[in-house]
């Protein structure tokens, strides 16, 4: 098996809703290896988003350890988290989350801007990424001039631009019709074949089936899917 890229150990996250304490993540253990295509499924409110936020370094766990590429990231400061998000993680969101007044090319360049790269280098890479998702001719289009599928492909290009070791896709087909959703999944599948590690979060079982490994989260606890392997531990 390839190198271990993500390790979650006894990760706990709780939220307070008034007097009520919700355990969004209840001692989660998860190992992801480089080159994997993992899907995390679960009904809404199961803790999917919380898990995604922690995996994406958007949020910190209350307890437990998160080791990303051998580095403990569960106690990092704001700025260090920003660097990790910039270099290690490519986000693909349900609502694409493109910046509306920037064109496709500029949206794709964004992670490289925050990395402090020069304009020429940024442009070259961003154009290559757009080409990779089949949008070479759309560099100057604003997001509202693109279809949903195209917007999601721009978002994928943006996620790829920083060549992060992990692509984190949160319901990437949720806002698309079946056909375009399938196209997006084709791209993700292709990227995985090319060696990208992909973590897919979805409630749609059909979409989840396309991943090589599936885990399921229910009430903050993680269960191995049909093709469970040794990376997942049941905790009751």
């Amino acid at each position, binding site marked *: 098996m390839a190198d271990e890229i993500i390790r979650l150990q006894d990760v706990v996250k709780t939220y307070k809703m008034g007097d009520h304490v919700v355990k969004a993540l209840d001692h989660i253990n998860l190992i992801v290896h480089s080159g994997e295509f993992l899907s995390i499924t679960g009904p809404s409110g199961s803790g999917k988003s919380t898990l995604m936020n922690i995996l994406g370094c958007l949020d910190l766990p209350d307890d437990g350890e998160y080791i990303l590429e051998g580095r403990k990231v569960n106690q990092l400061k704001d700025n260090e988290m*920003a660097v990790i*998000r910039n270099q290690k993680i490519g986000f693909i969101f349900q609502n694409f989350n493109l910046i509306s007044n920037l064109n496709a090319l500029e949206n794709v360049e964004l*992670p490289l801007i*925050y990395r402090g790269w020069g304009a020429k280098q940024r442009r070259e890479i961003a154009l290559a990424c757009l080409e990779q998702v089949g949008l070479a001719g759309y560099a100057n289009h604003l997001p509202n001039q693109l279809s949903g599928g195209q917007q999601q492909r721009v978002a994928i290009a943006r996620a790829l631009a920083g060549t992060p070791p992990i692509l984190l896709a949160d319901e990437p087909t949720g806002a698309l019709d079946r056909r375009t959703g399938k196209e997006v999944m084709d791209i993700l599948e292709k990227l995985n074949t090319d060696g990208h590690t992909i973590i897919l979060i979805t409630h749609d079982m059909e979409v989840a089936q396309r991943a090589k490994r599936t885990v399921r989260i229910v009430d903050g606890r993680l269960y191995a899917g049909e093709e469970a392997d040794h990376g997942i531990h049941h905790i009751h």
Partner: protein
Amino acid sequence: MGFITSIKMALRNIKGNKLRAFLTMLGIIIGVSSVIVLVAIGQGSTRSVTDSINNLGTNLITVNITTTDPPFSLDNINAIKKLNGVKNVSPVVSGRVTLKNNNEDTTEEVNLLGSDPAYKDIRILSVSQGRFISDIDMKFRQKVAVIGSTVAQNLFGNRSPIDQSLLINGDRYTVVGVLASKGGSMGQNIDETVIIPFTTAQRFLNTTYIQQFYAQADSAKRLDFAMLNIERYMAQVFNYDTDNYSVFNQQDVMDTMASVNRTLTLLLGGIASISLIVGGIGIMNIMFVSVTERTKEIGIRKSIGAKRKNILLQFLIEASVLSALGGLIGVGLGIFASELYGMATGTAPSLSLSVIGFVFLFSVAIGVIFGVFPANKAAKLPPIQALRFD
């Protein structure tokens, strides 16, 4: 993220919402332009006051005598002439008279001045036709007159007034010279004056003593020295009773006027600055709205690696670009309005580069200061909450 990239991004955001950007900048535009206009008008008026006082004569000391006991005579004047630091002294006697030309078809009420040859230099007068009063005129009490340009025009029209006769309160005088036009300043208009020899005037007005004289110091540096010597002499003459005379110089008047004007300029500029600050609050207000509107964008930017610093800088630069742009437009408008005011009133507002530069920098500073709050709010937004915002 590079500085230039940030400015480009800020400009694009401003361009994307032109009307709002303009309305946001309006406060700064009005503030900057009003500071520039008001200060220009204030400084222009200071300069015109200074010019008009200088026009009366340079290094000028004026002495007024309010008593006739002991009488102050031409002998005293000659003694003052010999004092250290004094270049010229000229006694003056004045009155209101009626003038008639030789045809007796035009009558005019003017100021009569009796003085001596030194008066011309002291008051920086020049003669456009003929000559000024001479020492011989003084000695023999000649009935000659030098007339101002307006008087010449009114009494003689286009004819040359030289060697023409003139009736002053019915007394016949010969015109020997016409003064070059100088215009009025500080309540005196030399163009509407007739000047005759001091000795002649004394007889004409029936006085024997001198009530006013001008002295000129030999240099600006020695003005105080000359004034001190004159004061000392006057004190001796009047037995140290300072109620009987007053000595003052042009500089004192000028300083007083300038200080009044400076205060006024500061006051006007200060009031206008308040509108600049109000403009800054307008920017802050809009930036807060903008931060709320763009919460999602901030979340997106943070999710792909923007640090707090990047977001802070983005909003700060946007506020600064807004205020700088407003400042630039304000400077342009201010210069335009000052010129317009100058043309409309025939005065010369004085635009100074340092004031313009200062006001511009002040407006940028206001953008930064009032941008800090909203920018900081944006930078501190937690990424998940910002992403969830719709």
